[in-house]
């Protein structure tokens, strides 16, 4: 059992990158993700009762690998292909598998910037990515 890593830290980002690159599930499901198009994602965690301030996670993704994972200061990032934005509480539901990311996107609860059709077309890649994020032992902020 790995020790939980505080969410929002460089150490957590490094752990996520390693998780993605070690995952055969992601490697297979995302083999075509980011090939011929910009597959970099910005996951936007909006502040709510469970998160004191917003966090923006940038992931450089292509061909089933994660080249870079880092929290960035702005909601926009020039290298982003797609951004997914939701209140932190919804992200928790997704990461704890109480809500499917696809359902959150399709019901509009999770906002998408970028070509939604491309995102939906690669549903398996994004499902596998979410699984990787959920697999990182995480110490989430305590509700305030």
């Amino acid at each position, binding site marked *: 059992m790995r020790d939980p890593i505080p969410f929002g830290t460089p150490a957590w980002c490094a752990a996520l990158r390693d998780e993605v690159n070690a995952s055969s599930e992601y490697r297979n499901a995302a083999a075509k993700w980011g090939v011929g198009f910009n597959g970099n994602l910005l996951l936007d965690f909006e502040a709510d009762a469970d998160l004191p301030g917003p966090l923006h996670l940038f992931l450089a993704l292509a061909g089933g690998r994660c080249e870079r994972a880092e929290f960035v200061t702005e909601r926009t990032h020039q290298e982003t292909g797609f951004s997914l934005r939701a209140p932190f509480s919804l992200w928790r539901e997704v990461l704890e*598998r109480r809500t499917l990311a*696809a359902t959150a996107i399709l019901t509009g609860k999770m906002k998408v910037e970028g070509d939604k*059709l491309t995102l*939906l077309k690669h*549903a398996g890649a994004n*499902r596998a990515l979410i699984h990787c994020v959920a697999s990182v032992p995480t110490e989430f902020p305590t509700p305030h």
Partner: protein
Amino acid sequence: MTALKKEFQAKVAGSVRAGGEVSPAQTTNFGHLFHSTPRLLLEPRGADDVVAAIAFARAKGLTLSSRGAGHSQSHVGVSDGGLLLSMVSMGRVLRVDADALTVDVEAGIAWGDLLRHLEPLGLAPPVLTNNLNVTVGGTLSIAGIGVASFRHGTQGDQVVELDVATGSGELITCGPDREPDLFWSVIAGLGQVGIITRARLRLRRVKPMTRTYYLLYDDARRFMEDARAAMDSGKWDHLESWASPSPQGTKPVNGRRQIFARWFFPFHPTVEFDPKSPPNDDALLAGLRPTEKLYVDDLPTYEFFARLAPVFDLWKRGGTWEHVHAWTESVMPWETTPDLLDALLPDLPPSILVGGHILLWPAKGTTSRSRLFMRPEGENLMGFGVLPAIPPQFWTEAKPMVEVVSRLSVAMGGKRYLSGYVDFTEAEWRDHFGPMWEPFVQAKHRWDADGILNPGFVPLDSRRPVAVPTA
């Protein structure tokens, strides 16, 4: 006998049962997701009984629902404390006009029973559903699609005339040129404005034999190119196709290993023929590029119509007929169908298709005039259906996946086919009907002002809440 039952029985010729006397099968439908008991159930003898039942329901402040073979999967064909009409008691063939090529039937007749009547005459309706045990009134209320729809449109497009008992209690004869607003509000109208009591259906002469080519494709896009070529060639009478899984082992999905499949695309073009002039196989198949030609099957045409009966029998004997059927059928734009298949098939466990299958039906959007059978713009369309049989104990687990299939198909430009399990919000219903929503609401108010007919599914009347699954 309760006083209410006695009072109702005095007004109708058909048999009336109280809620406690209704068979368990009549408290649910093929979906096994909704379970509710009517206050009274009537097996009407004829249109007069239907009109009398509507008058009785209105006088007593009850809702009135209608049920054919009960093959729907949403809150359709069931009643929660209202009157329920079991229309299968109205199953007669009234008149065949072999010169005009029409047949008049009562609405509760099953398509298979109608075919048995027409077979000696060499006649058949142009479009037949795969399951012939469903009723004429039931499928006309949804639209009615089959493997000949790419040529002929829906079953609703084959209707010459209807007798409809409206929610206001009138019995009105209507057709495409006679009371057309009522007619087109009844065809694919989910029983919201009236109950069909009689239908005059168009017929065609059939050739005695069919030849079906069992072609197999390993690539969805090449299959679709050939399906479009087959539709455009004008050579074929019926086109049927599926997506079929070949299990390959297990892979992780959300961290849990599940069976995954390589998907193949069987395509079965069929032509009718006279035994004296059998089809020219090479000419028919010219230009098609299947991975493999598996089998060529000659079958008497009426047996072809019933070709899936052994499959349904197997599902019944295997017990999966009693499972939860949350079928998700959509009419997709041709252009986004490959994307939908790419998105859904890789993670779809083939085990959910035990007792079910995945349909792919090439179709032409131009063949139907139905106003309420919603389909995407475009000449070429693809019917796509994930038809699982889910053991009841797995329903809670499977439900999110079913919802994703539905919402993904809609997000990719598809329109749901409404006989399956539909869990729309009111906003989604409005989106589904688009510009037809307001006319549909107006039709409901005009012909069913009290909002008594078939509540619980499409929220046309704000006084009637939408039902939630009880499975």
